[in-house]
């Protein structure tokens, strides 16, 4: 593609700073890049690297005047955007340049139908009303692949799935046939299968309409699949840019090399058919009753987990995969008896189903959990040492303060954190470090069995790989048994010795991970793998839309 011939957008020496005086923080530091007509440029980097801020400042969507530009220019079709007034830039926004955000749940107004939200844009920028507008809306929804668009006009955002909501967002962005679409991590909140569909849609639409795309992501797989050129950002600077093929095959900057090498190395613990059974569940069910009417009669059940049988042996890692809503997390919580369930659960040879909270306590130090969200899983009001110590207070109340401290220090050292930081508070740590603290809280009790509920999903690629190494290392050293819940199949492949594929609360298939990855038996599993590893869409009906 000829890039130099006609530049659509040209960003030169753009800097963004927040705050004033001493508190000023430079978020973006003199970045320059171009986007040609019909070209896809990807901005990659970890969180905090300034990619979203860069994209938002093109549309002047930052919180001015708290944010400001110490230097730089943004030229779009020969016009300088940074100096435009609010009224002028409003004309460019939504008309020539549009944006699709990450979170489809919050970018649509929950109180308006999708027709109303789309009609608003058409009215504002094209003055379309009535039948004309309606015809255009149906056309747009059809273009983004909403089945039977005419009947979905009156739907509210909550009646659509996450993928459909993102499609509606894309339809809104396409409504005025923009020259440039900015997509700010549009697929991060979606399942891999849906992600593949949305990526395909974006690519097809772009080809058809000849628009340019600025794609912001932290996922290198997407970049490779979608982009023509890539800009790698780190700490507010673009450290390397160039055609995708070149950057991926011959990276120049050390950071890019590091990023490309950050794929978690697959080295799972082998299945151990002779080791003692740690957890055994048989036909486990978690049903939530649906109650209707004045008498709250039970009319049906939401079957979050529906008849799952699993056997987990010491030292193994059971990978649990599936789309969101397939019951992965519920299964984990049910095994730990944190939600009520039906069906026998045998833990270390003892039946724990039906035990009261107090009777469960002796088992708790053998079974631990690490949650997904490193920001939500640590109490912001307790110091790191208090957080890690809490379990020791419960299970070893007789322990001396010095002994407790020694255990805390050992746990922190084990997860690769400096023990001297133990009197700090969680907000002083980054996401990856917080996840290590959560892990330290779990292992300080020296458990046998740890449920890992998407522990890497909220982390950046580099940190993800480190985390996977750490988990594997801990498992080897302490002979831990893991139940690893994730939708990220690359991470699962790196850790799982056995695999359990869930869909709608039911087991689709299970078996040794190595074999399953090589030869999946069901269409669903195949589609899941194709979407995760090659970002390919499956034929309709196999996965959710």
């Amino acid at each position: 593609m000829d890039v130099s011939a006609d530049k659509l957008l040209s960003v030169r020496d753009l800097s963004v700073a927040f705050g004033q005086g001493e508190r000023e923080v430079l978020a973006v530091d003199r970045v320059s890049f171009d986007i040609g007509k019909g070209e896809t440029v990807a901005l990659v980097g970890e969180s905090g690297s300034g990619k979203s801020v860069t994209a938002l400042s093109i549309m002047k969507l930052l919180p001015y005047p708290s944010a400001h530009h110490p230097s730089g220019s943004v030229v779009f079709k020969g016009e300088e955007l940074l100096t435009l007034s609010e009224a002028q830039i409003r004309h460019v926004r939504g008309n020539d340049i549009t944006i699709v955000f990450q979170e489809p749940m919050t970018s649509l107004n929950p109180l308006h139908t999708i027709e109303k939200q789309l009609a608003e844009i058409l009215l504002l920028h094209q003055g379309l009303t009535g039948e004309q507008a309606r015809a255009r809306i149906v056309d747009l929804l059809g273009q983004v692949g909403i089945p039977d668009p005419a009947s979905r006009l009156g739907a509210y955002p909550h009646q659509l799935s996450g993928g459909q909501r993102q499609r509606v967002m894309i339809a809104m962005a396409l409504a005025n046939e923009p020259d440039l679409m900015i997509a700010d991590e549009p697929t991060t909140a979606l399942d891999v299968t849906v992600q593949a569909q949305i990526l395909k849609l974006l690519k097809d639409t772009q080809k058809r309409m000849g628009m340019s795309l600025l794609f912001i992501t932290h996922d290198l797989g997407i970049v490779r699949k979608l982009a023509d050129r890539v800009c790698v950002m780190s700490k507010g600077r673009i450290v390397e840019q160039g055609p995708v093929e070149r950057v991926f095959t011959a990276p120049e900057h050390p950071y890019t090399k590091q990023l490309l090498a950050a794929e978690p190395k697959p080295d799972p613990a082998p299945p151990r058919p002779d080791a003692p059974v740690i957890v055994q569940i048989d036909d486990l069910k978690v049903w939530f009753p649906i109650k209707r009417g004045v008498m709250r009669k039970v009319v049906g059940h939401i079957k979050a987990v529906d008849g799952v049988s699993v056997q987990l042996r010491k030292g193994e890692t059971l990978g649990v995969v599936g789309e969101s809503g397939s019951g992965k997390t519920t299964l984990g919580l049910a095994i730990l008896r944190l939600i009520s369930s039906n069906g026998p659960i045998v833990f270390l040879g003892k039946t724990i189903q039906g035990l009261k909270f107090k009777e469960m306590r002796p088992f708790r130090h053998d079974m631990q959990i690490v949650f997904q969200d490193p920001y939500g899983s640590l109490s912001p009001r307790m110091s790191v040492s208090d957080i890690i110590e809490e379990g020791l207070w419960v299970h070893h109340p007789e322990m001396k303060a010095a002994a407790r401290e020694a255990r805390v220090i050992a746990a922190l050292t084990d997860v690769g954190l400096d023990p001297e930081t133990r009197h700090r508070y969680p907000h002083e740590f980054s996401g990856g470090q917080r996840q290590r603290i959560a892990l330290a809280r779990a292992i300080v009790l020296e458990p046998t069995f740890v449920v890992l509920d998407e522990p890497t999903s909220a982390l950046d690629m580099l940190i993800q790989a480190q985390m996977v190494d750490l988990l594997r290392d801990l498992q080897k050293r302490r002979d831990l048994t893991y139940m690893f819940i994730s939708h990220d199949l690359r991470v699962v492949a790196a850790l799982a010795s056995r695999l359990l594929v869930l869909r709608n609360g039911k087991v689709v298939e299970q078996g040794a991970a190595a074999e399953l990855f090589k030869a999946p038996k069901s269409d669903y599993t195949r589609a899941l793998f194709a979407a995760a590893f090659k970002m390919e869409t499956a034929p309709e009906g196999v996965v959710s839309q």
Partner: protein
Amino acid sequence: MDTRTGVKVDETVAVAPGGLAVPPERRLIAISPLNSRRWENFKANRRGYWSLWIFIVLFVLSLFAEVIANDKPIYIHVNGKWFFPVFATYPDTAFSDKQDPNLFGTAADYRDPYLLDLIAKEGGSMAWPPIRFSYNTQVSKPPSPFPSKPTWLLNEKDCEFAATHNFAKCGDLEYNWLGTDDGGRDVVARLIYGFRISVLFGLTLTIISSIIGVAAGAVQGFFGGWTDLLFQRFIEIWTSIPSLYLLLIISSVLVPGFFVLLGILLLFSWVSLVGLVRAEFLRGRNFEYVQAARALGVSNTLIIFRHLLPNAMVATMTFLPFILSSSVMTLTALDFLGFGLPPGSPSLGELLSQGKANVQAPWLGLTGFFSLAIMLSLLIFIGEAVRDAFDPRKTFR
């Protein structure tokens, strides 16, 4: 991705291989960095910060009202003996070694010129508070019928009036900075005592109703289900009782005193925090760190106190200054209507109602108005600053 909110901590900050330069010490009362940041935010709001200091100074001063405005000397040194009339009651015979037929051994009245002369004759010394009236001292030498003007406002005409109508002459007056009320009592003295009783009442009411409210909200929010449902309905019914009428009825049956009023107002004021704390608990009990604590086997009580209550305290703290000012207002309103503290006690509401009854004496109404306006404004400014300091979104500015 929250890059829009600012820049995050660098990945390597806390794991520097050499460790921290200075490991933080463990102190007895550790102020968490979160709280110290809040304090910084609070200080950054100059208006709220100064309001807090002014309010604290006024409140502490008013706590020592007895040595600021009193009709008894702070100390008397006579015949080699020390007396502290502010703190103890002495018979008037104690001040004289001789038998004086005019002293009867009753509690000394230090405004009696005879006694003062006697002490002076015996070579005694004494120190008076800056304002020589208590809240219930009647001015003995007024220039006019009560309420009389602030002394510095008296003009020729007033002096003439005093001279011709048998009142105290202008040269022979006690100084009343803000005049006297219709009972002949010094307004400044009443203001100082009234401020103290208002704030003390407000604080007590706020603290007790917060404790009850937080406890009720915590129980509802944490246990949910039927507990929550029944409690909520009870509160709905309870709050629909017209509280002012009930207060009027009760205070006409019971003799209204400080604690009776406190009790009656408490019946209704505890509800204000329940909804807030309940919502915080409902939100908080599903946080992952609460789940994690459950997975550790931590008991319900401990989860409430260690993990959930600190969260709810933010909402509570934010509301406290506003509850305090509304408590002060309620007491003032009751006093104004005449259903508050017993007659004769110093109160701002009573001052206001006197101002209403004596329009010809504007110093009453104006004093009442300005003191209330300033006190409530200070509380509101503090409240605003506290609210902003606890606002997590402010931290990125």
